[in-house]
């Protein structure tokens, strides 16, 4: 205090507002906060996988590999196998992909190559709104509107015309009750179309216009440009988009829970009620009355998580290769 006159820098420091943290340590605290938030994202994924493996340990320990080969789902005798729900998840997602991929490809081509410019933004937004609609709305619409429609108009025709065909006909047997794998697959397809379309549209737009113009200048039609330039150039991203859609379809819950029918039987026909991993969890979780039942359900959740993680990781890796190529090209 007394020698402040001899040290002018002191007055300068003295005038600065006194803080409980210096700027350097405030910076360090902020970076630490941001860093822990960033690593929390990693942690959530790991913790989710580990906690479900832990929750399902009774089921895995008791049934072993038998869990993946048994069709039992017997709450009374506490015997559980995952075959029926896994089969349902795979079949409904396969139907969804089979419908959604060609449609999404068509929409993406329409939005990037065919539609007049003024139409692109509104149609794009409308398709994206399909993704914003909560899945429970799809489920309700499915149960009250689409299931009756299927049972009155689509399924009787399928049973009459495809049912008698040997081989293929076995997929279309049974009574036209509306619910089942086919209905669930169609609703899943509608739900994943916007996700696949959005990725395809973005990568189609990223194709260098020089390549397309060159092809057009050689006298190609629009379709030939798409087939010979756009699709080969974006191939891995298109496959990535399909995997992304698959990842979404595998884990979709509410929409399929309403229309699958919650039946624990292995049926080849797509018109019979079935089950999926997600639908089993949604339907039976609150009813699980024994530890083994609960553990089996959580084990199912673990399987679903693992499968979707792998699917989404493949999708992401395929899309990354395109992004990297783009970054290099610039």
């Amino acid at each position, binding site marked *: 205090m007394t020698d402040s006159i001899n040290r002018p820098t002191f007055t300068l420091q003295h005038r600065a507002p006194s803080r409980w943290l210096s*700027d350097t340590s405030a910076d360090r605290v902020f970076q630490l906060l941001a860093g822990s938030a960033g690593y929390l994202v990693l942690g959530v994924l790991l913790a989710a996988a580990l906690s479900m493996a832990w929750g399902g340990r009774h089921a895995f320990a008791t049934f072993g590999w038998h869990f993946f080969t048994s069709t039992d789902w017997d709450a009374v005798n506490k015997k559980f196998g995952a075959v029926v729900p896994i089969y349902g998840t795979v079949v409904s997602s396969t139907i969804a992909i089979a419908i959604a991929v060609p449609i999404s490809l068509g929409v993406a081509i329409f939005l990037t190559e065919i539609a007049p410019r003024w139409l692109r933004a509104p149609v794009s937004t409308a398709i994206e709104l399909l993704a*914003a*609609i909560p899945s*429970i709305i799809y489920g309700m619409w499915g149960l009250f509107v689409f299931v009756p429609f299927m049972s009155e108009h689509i399924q009787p025709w399928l049973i009459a015309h495809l049912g008698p065909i040997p081989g293929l006909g076995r997929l279309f047997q049974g009574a036209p009750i509306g619910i089942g794998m086919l209905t669930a697959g169609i609703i899943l397809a509608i739900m994943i179309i916007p996700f696949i379309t959005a990725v395809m549209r973005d990568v189609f737009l990223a194709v260098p216009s020089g390549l397309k113009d060159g092809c057009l200048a050689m006298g190609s039609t629009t379709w030939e440009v798409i087939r010979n330039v756009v699709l080969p150039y974006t191939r891995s991203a298109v496959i990535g988009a399909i995997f992304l859609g698959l990842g979404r379809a595998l884990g979709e819950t*509410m929409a399929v829970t309403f229309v699958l029918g919650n039946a624990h039987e292995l049926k080849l026909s797509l018109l019979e009620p079935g089950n999926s991993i997600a639908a089993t969890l949604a339907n039976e979780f609150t009813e699980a009355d024994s530890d083994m039942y609960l553990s089996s359900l959580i084990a199912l959740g673990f399987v679903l998580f693992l499968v979707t993680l792998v699917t989404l990781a493949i999708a992401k890796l395929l899309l990354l290769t395109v992004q990297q190529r783009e970054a290099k090209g610039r």
Partner: protein
Amino acid sequence: MVTLRQRRQLTNRLMVVLSTGATLFGLFWLGWIMLTTLRYGLGALSHRLFTEMTPPPGSEGGLLNAFYGSLMMIVIAIGIGAPIGILAGTFLAEYHRHTHQGAVIRFVNDILLSAPSIVIGLFVYEVLIRRLGHFSGWGGGIALAIIMLPVVVRTTDEMLQLLPANLREAAFALGIPRWKVVSAVLYRAASAGILTGVLLAVARISGETAPLLFTALNNQYWSGSPSGPLANVPVVIFQFAMSPYDSWHALAWAGAFIVTLFVLGLAVLSRSILARGKVRQ
């Protein structure tokens, strides 16, 4: 005899027709679902929806407790998910823009973005609800926060990266410490984009049903605190729609209508904020 030129033109025209057809096919479902929700939902709307509790089987009532519970869980989710998400996004954009660490976290974040929400519910059940021993609105809020997180992380990361570099340089040249540059300069410049991310995330969680089945479950009565089972619109819609009672079905449609309106409204709002931001740039 069809010439090569005619065949090529024909293939081209067929492709145009097919992809236009695919687009109409997509829009057809949007129209059908929206019309259904509108028709059944408008028919079931009444003031009792906002003044009365969810009714016992077969009788009339409203959705007041469900709206309140949903709102409370969304607020909890925003309170947890938004700050963590914004910080994590900042970490990626400002500290690890081109590092391997950043790439790994972005990769995991993108996977989390598409991970099935039902699994997030199971996770919260395992680590929280089971320890608590009862269903809880806090659990529901936390599950929704986890679903919200990757959306906020991604938009914050993207929006901060879009900011011009000279904004940072100018601020650093004035000797402003980094945390202040981020919080007072960059956040302000990217506020519209970050807000959009939060809005999009809210739109995504407000219709989420599956994770709430394992966490908040449902509550037929009024519950002011989120520490017990908490009524919420999506689970009420699920249970009422699956029930055999017509009066419950009507309430489910009314709830579905309002949730859809809310979610689509948010989606359109966040789009317009983004569009305005782009024009200004």
